[in-house]
């Protein structure tokens, strides 16, 4: 009997050791980033959100913008009730499901303006501060009721987000300017920010 008990004890100890070992590796692999690391990651995200490829459709007014100089969209284009333009002048009147490189019109599935709750500039077209945008993006009453996981998924998969990193050619054949980091880097930064608890910088 003592030898059986010793044997059982050894088995139990091995089992505990194994579980703790697995848990330790897991914690090490996904250690929650610190708040300062999260804020640093957010700053990377912010450089993308406020890039013309993104912010041109996150306006505070009745119209989208165009170009790296963020000028008002030509052709009297207006926001419309659902951010998709108006009956005879919808976004899809020109913007198709993919970039039209031979004619210089950008396109992606579901082209539309972001809702006003997700404006990242003021009515004078000045870009909002990093803390202000961060607070809006992490506020579920403003961001389409997205939690951290949903925000990450949005930045990973949303066609218009993906378009920003593959914005096609202008009418003169030159390539549109992409955001300052790659999509992979953008997703990684979003993930770190989310894992850190979506901290925002101080005003």
């Amino acid at each position, binding site marked *: 009997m003592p030898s059986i008990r010793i044997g059982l004890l050894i088995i139990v100890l091995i089992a505990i050791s194994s579980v703790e070992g697995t848990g330790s590796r897991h914690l090490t692999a996904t250690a929650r980033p610190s708040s300062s690391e999260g804020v640093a990651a957010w700053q990377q995200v912010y450089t993308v959100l406020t890039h013309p490829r993104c912010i041109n459709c996150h306006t505070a007014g009745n119209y989208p913008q165009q170009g790296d100089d963020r000028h008002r969209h030509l*052709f*009297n*284009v*207006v926001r419309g009730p659902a951010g998709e333009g108006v*009956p005879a*002048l919808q976004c899809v009147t020109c913007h*198709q499901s993919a970039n039209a490189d031979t004619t210089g019109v950008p396109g992606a599935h579901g082209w539309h303006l972001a809702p006003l709750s997700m404006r990242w500039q003021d009515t004078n077209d000045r870009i909002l501060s990093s803390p202000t945008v961060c607070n809006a993006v992490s506020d579920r009453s403003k961001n389409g009721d997205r939690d951290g996981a949903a925000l990450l998924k949005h930045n990973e998969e949303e066609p218009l987000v993906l378009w920003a990193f593959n914005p096609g050619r202008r009418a003169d054949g030159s390539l549109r300017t992409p955001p300052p980091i790659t999509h992979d880097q953008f997703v990684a930064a979003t993930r770190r920010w989310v894992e850190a608890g979506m901290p925002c910088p101080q005003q």
Partner: protein
Amino acid sequence: METYKLTVNGQQKEVSADPGTPLLWVLREELKMTGTKYGCGIAACGACTVHLAGVATRSCVVPVSLVGNRSVDTIEAMANDPVGRMVQNAWVDQDVVQCGYCQSGQIMSAVALLKSIRKPTDKDIEESMGGNLCRCGTYVRIRAAIKAAAGELG
């Protein structure tokens, strides 16, 4: 060159074109449907407006490769469209046209507007028609004709 099967005004058409060719040029050059006009080539004037699956669309900037299976309707079909016919009648009644070059695009946009909003306000008309330019300045008569057509639609 690729082969594309298009449904234009309810009829099946097969065309050979470079994928990047704008729909406008497929209509005008391949199918010889010249009612749709070339104005600016950059979607700025609206003269080339057609309907893609019922949506007013600038055919000068849509490559034929992106049309897909969406139906294409042009000014040539409007006389057989109930709303289109009313709009064209209103255009005649109001004597809208001056030189006429932009008017097929104007009518296509007006039809799209009235199919979406039966009783458009002045603001609806200004916003929806704001992308259709008329260098003859027939805007006042265009607005009157749209309102007249709206009245006929009931």
